[in-house]
Structures are given as C-alpha cells and as structure tokens.
C-alpha cells in the first residue's frame, strides 16, 4: 500500500479546486484558469520514487499524481496510465524498463494472416484481464483512500498506436499502403478491445471518462487523409461504442505531435458537454491558443500547450512567458480554457517550471477582468 505518502487531503483546498475545475463546464467561472501538465512519472521523481515504481504499482502511481496535484494546486483529479494500454488483451506482452513507460516486448503480428488470429475479448473477459485489473487496483485505492479525487478514466492512447505496436510501427506504416485492409482489421480489433475496456470500467464505477488521442496519427508521419483513415475514424468509433456501453460522458481528446495539416479533420470529433481538447504542435511551434479558440472554442474546452522540452530545459521565466502568451490568446474561449502541456510533462521537469505554469494562471487567468 502506498500510504502514507503525504498528509491527508486538505478538504478546503479540494473544495475550492473542484469548483474551479468544474467551472468551464458549468459556465460559472470560478477562481482562475486551471492547469494540467499531464503528470505521470514526474510525480514519482517528485516524491522520491522511480519511473519503474510508477508504472509497476498502479495504486502508488495514482496516489502520487493525486498528491502532486494538491502540491502544485492543479486539477483535483487523479489519473494513471501509459500509452500502450489494452495491448495485452490483444496478445502482446509488456516489458517494464527503468526509464520508460511499459513497452510492447515484440511484435506479435509478423505476417498479414496473423491479424485474423487476434481475438477481441468481451466486456466480462476484459474485466478479468491484466489491464482492467491494474485500473481496478488504482481506482479502488482511490475510492478507499482519496475518493474526492477519483474520476474513473478509460484511456485509449491510442488505438492506432496499439494496432501499430503489435505489428511494429515501421511495418504497420508500410502496410497502410501495401496492406490497408489488414490495417483496418487490426484497427477495428484494437478499437473494439479498448471500447470493451472502457465499458468494463464504466460498469464497475458507474461512469468512465474517455481519454483518447491521435498520437501516432499526426502529419509528421501520415498524410492528412491517412490521419483521417487510420486514426480519426477509429477515435470516433471508440467514443461512439464506449458511450453506447455506458462510458463517458466526459471526453478528453489529446492530439499529440504536429497537426498543422490535419487539424480541420478534428472539427468533427464527437462532442459532449464535458469535452476537453488538447493539441500539441502546429509545425514546430506549439498550437496557438488563439487558433484553438477560433477553430474549436465553440465546441470544446480548449487545453492549449506549453512545449514539453521547454518544461524540461527552459528557465522558469521562459515557461511563465510561454504560458502567459497562450492564456492571453485563449482565456476567453467560449467553453473554457485549461492550461496544458503538449504531452506528458517530462519526468525530470524542475518543479519550479510547473509552479511557473500555475503562476501564469494566477496572474493572467483570473476570471472577471477580461
């Protein structure tokens, strides 16, 4: 058991933070703009644990994020995840390295005909599988120890990455031209598996916020048409299936990497009243909050980014200025604004740079004076 890690939750802080967190969705601005640096194993470093500890011990991992959220005064919701989620249910093995999140040991689809051998487990079978077991451990721990910060989340980062991971990324990308039908078979199986996972979480906890991303599906790798065909369409399918099975209604969309040429495609993402959209880059620059407001602000709570390398290697003032620029450009977005980072904040990010994000929110994100 990970406790004791940190003094008990400060209920006064939590009440305030929770009201602030909910304000973009309820249309009643409160306090200041919130921020979420997408912290994962950074929290392990902050509390003296290792990256491996974070990923091999879900209860510890989720508790670390919860306590770090309180420490930094950011979103009062805890989470724990990694990119290659639900791949074990497709037959892959995960390995745990010292400096990385879990990775797929080796491709299991060596030839196109191997795709047919992969089976999609139903919701009850998935609930007994390794991935759901990890999530249940994490969420049960939260339910028992820090229930105020539990929002059960079903992560599917990302179905394209999962399908590609079990083939080998290079080979899968080549198959998008040479064997597109096989790619679709694999994507459908990866999507159905992730959706069944989300439904299993929703059944156990009554709801499951859906976290889905276009991580491998970006225009550094694929054409805009390729992003639509192999990433976007399956994100939609995942969300649709998971919602029909009891998942949602909260949605978190994370568009990782460069989306300069394909962002228009994502205007058709399935919406809910609680939909947050985070975009990483527009070419080499972070996707501007002004452009996000203009293109997506009427549909989603926008979550613009500060560059993750800047978070790691920039000075505190550089981070503060970058966050300030984004906040000033997008803080009046119609459905609200959350200050974010372009991807998971690097584990070795100096805590002062996370505090710089908060300071920018405090100085330029206070509601009522714009």
């Amino acid at each position: 058991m990970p406790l004791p890690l940190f003094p008990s939750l400060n209920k006064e802080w939590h009440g305030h933070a929770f009201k602030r967190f909910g304000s973009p969705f309820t249309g009643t601005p409160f306090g200041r703009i919130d921020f979420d640096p997408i912290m994962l194993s950074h929290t392990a470093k902050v509390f003296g644990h290792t990256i491996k500890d974070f990923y091999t011990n879900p209860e510890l991992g989720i508790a670390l994020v919860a306590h770090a959220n309180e420490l930094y005064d950011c979103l009062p919701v805890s989470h724990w995840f990694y990119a290659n989620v639900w791949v074990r249910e497709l037959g892959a093995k995960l390995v745990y390295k010292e400096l990385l999140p879990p990775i797929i040991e080796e491709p299991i689809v060596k030839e196109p005909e191997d795709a047919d051998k992969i089976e999609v487990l139903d919701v009850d079978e998935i609930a007994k599988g390794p991935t759901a077991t990890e999530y249940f451990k994490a969420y049960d721990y939260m339910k028992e120890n820090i229930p105020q910060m539990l929002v059960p989340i079903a992560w599917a980062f990302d179905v394209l990455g999962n399908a590609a991971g079990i083939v080998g990324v290079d080979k899968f990308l080549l198959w998008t031209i040479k064997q597109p039908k096989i790619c679709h078979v694999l994507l459908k199986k990866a999507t159905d598996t992730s959706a069944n996972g989300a439904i299993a979480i929703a059944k156990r906890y009554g709801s499951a916020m859906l976290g889905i991303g276009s991580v491998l599906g970006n225009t550094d790798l694929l054409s805009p048409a390729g992003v639509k065909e192999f990433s976007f369409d399956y994100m939609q399918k995942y969300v649709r299936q998971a919602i029909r099975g009891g998942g949602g209604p909260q949605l978190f969309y994370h568009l990782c990497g460069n989306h300069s040429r394909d962002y228009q495609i994502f205007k058709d993402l399935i919406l809910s009243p609680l939909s947050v959209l985070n975009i990483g880059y527009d070419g080499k620059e972070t996707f501007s909050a002004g452009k996000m407001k203009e293109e997506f602000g009427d549909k989603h709570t926008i979550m613009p980014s500060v560059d993750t390398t800047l978070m790691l290697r920039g000075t505190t003032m550089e981070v503060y200025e970058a966050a300030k620029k984004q906040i000033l450009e997008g803080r009046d977005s119609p459905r609200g604004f959350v200050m974010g980072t372009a991807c998971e904040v690097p584990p070795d990010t100096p805590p002062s740079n996370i505090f710089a994000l908060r300071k920018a929110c405090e100085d330029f994100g206070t509601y009522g004076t714009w």
Partner: protein
Amino acid sequence: MVEKKEILKGLANATIEGDAESCKKFANEALKAKVDAYEGIIGGCAKGMKVVSDRYEKGEMFVPEILLSAEAMYGAINILKPHLKIKAAEMPGTVVIGVIEGDIHDIGKNLARIMLDAAGLKVIDLGRDVPLKEYLDKAKENNADIVAMSTLMTTTMAGLGKVVNMYKEQGVRDKVKIIIGGAPLDQDFADEIGADKWAKDAVEGVVLAKKMTAELRKKRGMTW
C-alpha cells in the same frame, strides 16, 4: 540492351514510385549493361530517394511512402552491392547510428538510416536501446567518421552526453564527428554535451554527415 541513362532514370523513378519490381528489374539491367554498381546506386536509387526526401520536406510525401520507396531501393541495392568495386574507405563516409540505451523509439533513426544509405554512406545500424559503450567500440572497429545518436525520450537524453564523455576519456574525441537527433533535442543541448551538431530531421542529418565527413577526413585522414 537498355542504355545507361535510361537505366539510371528507371532506378530513380522506380524508387520514387516505391515500385520494388521495377527497381530490381533496372538493377539487373544495370549489371547486364555493365553500369558501375556504385553509379547505379548513387546515380539511380539515391537520386530517386533525394526526390522522396525533398517531397517529404515539403509535406508532399509522408512516412509510409518513404518506407515504400526505401523497400524498393533496398531491393535494387541488394542486387548491386555484391558488384561494388569501391572500397569502404573510399565511401563518402561511415556512420555508426543507433537509438540510445533505454529508448526504443526508432522511426526517426530508421528514416535517417534510409537517407544515409541513399546518399551512398556506409551505415552501421546498431539498432535501438544501444549500450553506450557500443557507440565507441563499433565506431573504432569500423573507422567511423560520424556517430549519430537519437532519442525521443527526455529520460534518456543524459546517455548522449555520457557517450561524448567516453570519447573524451579515451582520447579519441577528434576521431569522429558526433551528431544527435530526436524531438526533445536542439543545438543548445548538443553544445551543452559537447556533440558537434544537432540535426532537426533525417534529411538535415544526411547533409551534415556528408559535410562533416569531408571536413574530418581533411583534418584526420581517411582512418582513425
């Protein structure tokens, strides 16, 4: 018999189109017509691959198309390579390349390898999650001109500096040029760890590798 000019054009076009069968066909035609194998690779496949990389830079082609072109190109290279008369030391450079220890993300490294091969450099691909010492051992063993290291993860960036230090400690830092690449890196980081250059992408990596090899060989000679 098909003429040399037509063969080279055929190899280039087949590479651009990612047409593996045509690439093999023109490679065999090249051998029949006694076209020098190195000229076939450089004047044919590499020219085609240059068009592919230019189109990638402009956003007109994407990674799947590059991989298709590379597959076609390697089909031709495999036919032509056994007939190469050029000695390794006469190649326009030898590059030892790999993803640093602890990291397994190798799309960028694989693209760089393809572009380096296409540019006629000798490439020793160490793969991914490469133990740090291997960058030194393999470079020594192969008289490498360039050591190219990449990482996508911020947690493994420190390994790049350790390799540079290993070269310094062994007194062989001036024997090679060190290029680093990967999303979280930049020239400031390259300067900080004592690497020679940061390449923003695979295309720039090739330009740098060729330029730096020429500079190095002028100063150091052909071998270590």
